[in-house]
C-alpha cells in the first residue's frame, strides 16, 4: 500500500532546503541560494511555508553589519523528513 508523500516536502526546492538542514545544524540564506541556484524570492516563499508548517526555525541576526537569515530544522521537520524518505522507499521498491 503506497502512502501519500507529504505534499509540503514533495516539492523540489522545499525538499532541497530540508535535505540541506538535515546535514547542517544551521544554514544561512546565502548557502541555500548557492547550493540550490534558486532565486531569493522563491527561496523566501518556500522558507515561509516550511516555517508555517513548523518544520524549520528562522533565525534573524546581524553578521558583519549585514542582516543574516539562518535556518534550523525542528524535531517536527526531522520527523517529517524521515517519514517522507520511508514512504519514498515504498515507491522505489521494485514490484514483486
Amino acid at each position, binding site marked *: 500500500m503506497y502512502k501519500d*508523500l507529504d505534499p509540503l516536502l514533495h516539492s523540489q526546492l522545499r525538499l532541497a532546503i530540508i535535505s540541506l538542514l538535515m546535514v547542517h545544524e544551521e544554514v544561512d540564506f546565502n548557502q541555500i541560494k548557492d547550493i540550490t541556484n534558486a532565486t531569493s524570492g522563491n527561496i523566501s516563499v518556500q522558507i515561509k511555508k516550511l516555517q508555517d508548517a513548523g518544520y524549520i526555525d528562522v533565525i534573524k541576526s546581524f553578521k558583519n553589519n549585514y542582516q543574516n537569515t539562518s535556518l534550523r530544522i525542528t524535531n517536527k521537520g526531522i520527523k517529517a523528513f524521515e517519514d517522507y524518505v520511508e514512504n519514498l522507499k515504498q515507491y522505489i521498491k521494485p514490484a514483486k
Partner: protein
Amino acid sequence: MTHKEFTPSESLNLITNIILEAKSRFKDNGFAFIFIGLCCFISSLGQFILLKLEYYQVSYYPYFIMPVAGVITYFYYKKKRSTVKSKNIIGTLLALFGVILGLNLTIAGFFFWEKFDIALLPFMLILFSLWPFLTGVLIRNRLFTALGLIVNIIAYCSFFIGMEYHPLVLSIVSLIGIVLPGIVINYSHKESYV
C-alpha cells in the same frame, strides 16, 4: 531550481545530491595553513641564521615553536568547531591529515634527525607536499595541486643541495607550499561573506 512536483526517484536523487553537495563544500579561513606555515618559516630561517653564525649546538632550538604552534592550532579549531555548526567531511579529513602529518614531522625532526641525515629535509618535504596536494584534490583547486607537486619536486632536488642550505629551502617551501595556499583560502573565505 524550479518549484515543481516530481517523481519519487527524482526526489531521492535530489536528496542524495543535496546532501553530497553540502558535505563536500569546504569552508575554512586558512588559519592552519597561514599560522603553521609562518611558524615553520620563522623556525627554519632561524636555524639557517644560527648555522650561519656558527651556533651549531643550539641551531635546532627555533623548531620548538612548532609543537607549540600545533597545540595553538588544535585549540583554535576546537573553539571554532563549537561555534560552527556545519558538518563537513572534507574539513574533517584535512584536519585529521594535518594532525597525522604534524606528528610525523615532529617525531622525524626531533628524534630521528641523525638516522635520516641528508634525507631528513627531502623526507619532510615529501610529507609537506601531501598537504597542499591533498587539499587541492579535495577542494578541486588546481593551484593547490600544482604547489603540492612543486614542493614534491623540490623535495627530490634538495638531495643535491648542501645540507647547510636545507633550512633555507624549508623556509622558502613553507612560504610557497603552506602560507600561499592559506592566503588563497583566506581570500576566498572573505569573498564568500561579501
